[in-house]
């Protein structure tokens, strides 16, 4: 059962997206679409025909599969609600980050393949943001990792509540910013716009349609969910089912749902209270995140907890 | 041994037939090679040649020098036949000058052969002075104003220097008479070495200072080297080859003989300091001047200074490795430097210029010269796997064993500069698209090297390569013996 916990990410990720949208709508005083809207969108896209740009090569076709399967593979490594690890018991956080990187790599290639200006723009910016995010994310992860002496999520998750140390607070803040950037949300990117000059994520997907677009989007939802799960595992590692912890799968899942909901809410609030930044203001934000994470590491080394 | 070049010279004097005196010269040189080798073989068998009067004395060291001299004079003779022939047809010099060239060539060889065989230090001095006089005329072979100027400076500077050497010789003699009693002094090297420990150190010191300044001038040790670049760049190429290939070594040979006495009399420290002083200044000066030196013949001249510096350094360290290194380096330099001069000569023949600007694409124009030239450059720069590296490595080893870090530092640093200088200037000539040769040269000179000359040069290049990996046993023994003689 716990070996297949990744399915919950696969299935529930559109729901998370829906919830975020809903909360945002509420904040902005709109009714907004129902929380199951993403499922409908995906289904619709799957049913549509595809338009393939004449200039595209096989990379264009391969990209969606690679992106999706890499995210799926990554989510197979994550302990979702049970510390028993996952189907392959290799829940190494660095491995997860790099597996996600495959997806990004091919998504960017897909953006370039059609040879349009927007695709290139999207890929360029996506990679740039990734460059700015990666170090702070790693350092934030390191804080959690060194605290429990391992980069294995299972171990970290088992290590119980270490949330109350200042190092973790800082790390969490940094990680949260990183998550926002990685999931392409305001203030870094605006997921709802197709305004050519501001879009990053959408820019790369501009040529995609139908099934491929569905795959890309779904992968995107999963990635978002996956990152939330990571945050949960790294910084709120309590209430996980598995040996030692007295939680059964069901209640553990309950805890998990709560955590994810909180994170979704956080993201939604952040998104609706912030305006999107100019692209070249991002370095200051993400740089701040990096400083936070560096501080967290150093505080940890100094204080030892 | 000495007869042959004299005879050859005589022939040159008598006949007007170009072929005749050319062949006489080459044949004489060949014969000398044979004799020198047999002498070396004899020395290896342990016998030492002494003339009844004690004037002549040939031990391993002398044999070593003789072999070098003989080989080089042969090679240069072979090269001369083609090179000077071309010069003649190109009208750079007239028939008379051509004949005198060979006459003086043989006299030059004669005086140089005399040097290592002389036991009496005064005779040694006379021979060396003789080389100056003859070679000065050779340097002035082309009656151009530059060559005359070079010859003038050469003869003045070297004569001044050699005068001090003479004074030094006298003082050494005086020291001996101080030990043996008034008026009973000796000048035989053998005698002096045997009684070296009884000589008055202060006197010997003075004498050695004069000697090293005197013969050092001739050997091209900085800061008294100034004649060298001019003479080398203005002399006919084969003569430049002989000058840097053997003449410098012969002068240094004089220093070595005296150094043996000085070592025994006033301790190795003094000799070492002197050698380091001159050696270091030589390598430094040379390397700096090689950085920007468009005229490749001058470049090679400065490289000779550098190599004499290296020889002096390794001689100064002493010890089996040091001395072995310096002798081996003498040999290597005597092969590598002439080779490069020959290459330059061929280039000059084709382009009628030795300025590295304006000349390019030798590798394309004359592939053989290009390849040999590159080998030579690398060898001169002391890069493995070529022979000079071996001697320089041995020197490093000796320096390290003695812990002379500052010397090693200077040597390595200058080594980098030298490498840069050589590669920059020669590389510029060898690489690139071939620049058009001047019609003057092109008319006469076949860009193709004649078979014999080519073979000889290729042989020298191969020697550089082979001796970088393996040193033949007899040679090894000969050098070891000679080192033993110097080491005392």
């Amino acid at each position, binding site marked *: 059962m716990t070996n297949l916990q990744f399915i919950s990410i696969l299935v529930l990720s559109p729901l998370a997206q829906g919830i975020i949208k809903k909360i945002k709508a509420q904040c902005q005083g709109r009714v907004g679409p129902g929380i199951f809207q993403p499922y409908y969108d995906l289904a619709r896209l799957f049913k549509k025909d595809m338009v393939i740009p004449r200039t595209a090569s096989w990379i264009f076709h391969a990209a969606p599969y690679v992106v999706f*399967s890499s995210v799926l593979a990554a989510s197979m490594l994550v302990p979702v609600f049970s510390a028993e690890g996952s189907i392959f018991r290799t829940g190494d956080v660095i491995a997860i980050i*790099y*597996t996600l990187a495959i997806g990004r790599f091919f998504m960017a290639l897909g953006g370039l393949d059609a040879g349009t200006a927007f695709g*290139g723009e999207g890929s360029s910016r996506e990679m740039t943001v990734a460059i700015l995010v990666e170090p702070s994310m790693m350092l934030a992860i390191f804080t959690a990792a060194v605290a429990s002496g391992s980069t294995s999520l299972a171990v970290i998750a088992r290590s119980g509540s270490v949330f109350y140390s200042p190092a973790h607070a800082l790390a969490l803040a940094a990680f949260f910013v990183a998550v926002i950037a990685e999931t392409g949300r305001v203030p870094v990117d605006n997921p709802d716009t197709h305004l050519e000059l501001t879009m990053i994520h959408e820019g790369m997907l501009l040529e995609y349609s139908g099934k491929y677009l569905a795959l890309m989007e779904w992968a995107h939802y999963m990635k978002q969910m996956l990152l939330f799960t990571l945050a949960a595992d790294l910084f709120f590692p309590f209430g996980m089912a598995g040996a030692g912890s007295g939680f059964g799968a069901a209640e553990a899942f309950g805890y998990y749902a709560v955590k994810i909901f909180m994170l979704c809410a956080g993201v939604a609030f952040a998104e609706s209270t912030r305006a999107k930044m100019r692209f070249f203001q991002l*370095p200051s934000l993400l740089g701040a995140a990096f400083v936070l994470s560096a501080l967290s590491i150093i505080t940890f080394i100094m204080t030892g907890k | 041994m000495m007869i042959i070049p004299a005879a050859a010279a005589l022939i040159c004097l008598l006949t007007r037939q170009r072929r005749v005196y050319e062949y006489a010269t080459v044949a004489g040189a060949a014969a000398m090679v044979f004799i020198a080798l047999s002498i070396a073989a004899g020395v290896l068998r342990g016998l030492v040649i002494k003339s009844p009067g004690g004037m002549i004395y040939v031990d391993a060291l002398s044999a070593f020098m003789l072999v070098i001299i003989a080989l080089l004079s042969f090679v240069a003779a072979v090269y001369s036949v083609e090179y000077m022939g071309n010069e003649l047809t190109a009208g750079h010099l007239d028939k008379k000058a051509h004949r005198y060239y060979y006459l003086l060539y043989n006299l030059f060889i004669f005086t140089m052969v005399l040097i290592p065989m002389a036991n009496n230090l005064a005779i040694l001095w006379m021979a060396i002075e003789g080389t100056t006089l003859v070679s000065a005329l050779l340097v002035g072979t082309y009656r151009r104003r530059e060559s005359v100027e070079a010859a003038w400076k050469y003869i003045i500077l070297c004569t001044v220097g050699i005068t001090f050497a003479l004074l030094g010789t006298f003082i050494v003699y005086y020291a001996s008479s101080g030990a043996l009693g008034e008026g009973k002094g000796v000048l035989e090297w053998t005698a002096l070495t045997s009684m070296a420990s009884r000589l008055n150190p202060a006197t010997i010191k003075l004498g050695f200072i004069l000697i090293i300044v005197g013969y050092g001038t001739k050997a091209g040790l900085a800061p008294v080297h100034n004649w060298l670049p001019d003479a080398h760049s203005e002399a006919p190429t084969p003569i430049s080859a002989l000058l840097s290939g053997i003449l410098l070594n012969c002068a240094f040979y004089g220093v070595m003989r005296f150094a043996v006495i000085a070592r025994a009399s006033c301790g190795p420290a003094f000799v070492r300091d002197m050698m380091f002083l001159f050696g270091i200044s030589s390598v430094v000066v040379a390397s700096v001047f090689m950085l920007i030196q468009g005229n490749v013949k001058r470049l090679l001249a400065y490289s000779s200074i550098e190599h004499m510096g290296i020889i002096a350094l390794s001689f100064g360290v002493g010890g089996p490795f040091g001395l072995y290194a310096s002798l081996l380096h003498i040999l290597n330099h005597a092969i590598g430097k002439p080779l490069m001069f020959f290459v330059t000569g061929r280039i000059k023949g084709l382009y009628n210029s030795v300025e590295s600007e304006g000349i390019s694409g030798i590798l394309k124009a004359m592939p053989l010269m290009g390849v040999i030239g590159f080998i030579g450059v690398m060898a001169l720069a002391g890069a493995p796997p070529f022979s000079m590296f071996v001697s320089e490595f041995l020197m490093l080893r000796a320096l390290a064993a003695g812990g002379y870090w500052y010397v090693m530092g200077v040597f390595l640093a200058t080594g980098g500069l030298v490498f840069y200088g050589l*590669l920059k200037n020669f590389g510029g000539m060898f690489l690139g698209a071939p620049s058009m040769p001047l019609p003057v040269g092109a008319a006469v000179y076949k860009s193709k090297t004649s078979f014999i000359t080519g073979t000889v040069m290729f042989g020298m290049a191969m020697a550089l390569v082979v001796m970088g990996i393996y040193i033949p046993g007899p040679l090894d023994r000969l050098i070891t013996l000679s080192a033993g003689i110097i080491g005392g």
Partner: protein
Amino acid sequence: METESTEIVSPKEGPRKLSSAFYVIYAAGCLFLGAISLQDLLLGNKWSFALALSSALSLSIRGGGLGSYFSLILSILGFSASVYSFGYTRDFKVPTAFAILFGIFLFSMYAVFFSANVPAFLISWETMSLASYFLVISDTENRESARAGLFYAVITHVGTAFIAAAFMVLYFATGSLEFSAMSAALKSSDALRSTVFVLSLIGFGTKAGIVPLHTWLPRAHPAAPSNVSALMSGVMIKSGIYGILLVSLDLMGGGSLWWGVTILFLGAVSSVMGVLYALMEHDIKRLLAYHSVENIGIILLGVGASIIFSANNLPALAGLSLAAALYHTLNHAVFKGLLFMGAGSAVHSMHTKNMEEMGGLIKRMPWTALFFLVGCVAICALPPFNGFVSEWMTFQSLVLGIKTSTVLTKTIMLLAGAALALTGALAAACFVKAFGVSFLGLPRSREAGEVHEASLSMLLGMGTLALLCLLLGVFPGYVLRVISSVPLGGLGSVQQYAPGNLTLVSAGSSSVSPAALLMAMLVGAAFIFVFPLLLNGRRKSVIADPWDCGIIRLTPRMQYTATAFTHPLRRIFKKIYKPRKDVRIEYTVKPFFVREIEYRSEITPLFDSYFYRPLIRALNHTALSARRLQSGNLQLYLGYILVTLVTLLVVWG
């Protein structure tokens, strides 16, 4: 426009056949030597023999040591490079001479790894350098490569001088030139050991291309033909790593903490600077060359960590980090060789190294594109390819730096980890650019439109390496078994990190299994291939022009250029790049109708413009002013004699 160092002429049949024969022999020789080295390592048998050069000097070689591992790497790359050359050198002007030089270069590298005493090492070392120099200038008529060659030769020669000095100090300390005797007899003061360390670090650093000694790399690698660049970048610069390991670990048996910290710091700087400069390159081979700097940095991270650990006596962790370094050495050799060959076959048919003129190559040379893509993914350390494994291990050892004793080491190692992460991200961006701009999209020039696929042997050479990229990534256990058999401190215990052959475990009880990842991805792909079919049978797809904002039709000039791709980074990191930008606009009717806009933007290479150029200028100045000493005035010269004599008389007389 730089052109590839060969141009199409039709050489005579004879030399071509001959050179081909040479390459066959080389390939066979590589296989043979590789087999020997592997056997020596696994069976742990050591051999050595000496050849007397003269009474004063002898050369000796040995097997079964650290060198065997490197010669194994060399064999892998040497083999495929030879196969590649078989087709690549077809239209060279002087194939035979080139083939011979290539052979000298190849086997002199073997000599370096096999040599067992100082003279042998120095001789083969410099032979390697000179051979590579001649290969760099093998296109003798190209001024550019001549200049690059000169720069390279001089720098590497100076490096050799430092190496020689280091060995001489060792000789002074131990009284022997044999490596074995050195490592046995070395009981000397810390100052002495540190001197040796610094000298050798500088000397070998020049060869390895550690920042700031890297400046020859981006010059020489592009100038050389690609089969040579592959060897240079794949193996030759590793000989620098070999040297550092040899001297500081094998001969001196590890050292003080600050060695490790220094190396770690240099590694971090090199990796970041290397990739930053790579990003700004449009010359595909210069780009790859800069990436070599980066990867050397990553290797050094492992080495430094290992020295730090052993100074904290944590042998197990030291083993882990060293294993990471060695593993990455192997990996980099494989994928960098692959990338250079791929770039080579692109350049070979394009006759330009400028990415801005490529584009869309994937359509006409699909196989090359595929192999190049594999290389890109591998060098970006993306699973399941080999780069990931070694970088994962490096990450592990850096994170475990928390186990060291001092605050300094903890901090610097974790920050180094961050630097590694940054490097990874930058590398990813760089290779998205490299592959995307040159292989994807529309052809940016006429040549790009009419390229031809590389010849079979070239594809074979690349294919081998591409396959290895995958295998080395999926079966790390086998590699670690080989590494653990390298006789070097702490490495013996490395195999504990690979209990199976598929899974890697780090000391921090964290584990990863690339094979499993591969499986997962395949499962995912299969699932997602089936899923839509379940949802709704097959849908047809329409081929149409891409979205062009409604203009008539998309032209190649509208797609993102390499310059544009990296423009954000150029702005973000302008402190480092110091970009110079000039925009020239020509109007037909000012200011409304623009005829043409020229946009040029280049960056200032820090170390060139602030260290090397001033140095060279100073040297030339000195030389010029020194020439006054030789003024041509005879009296002056006589004056020198007088002064010299008087001084000597006063001082010694």
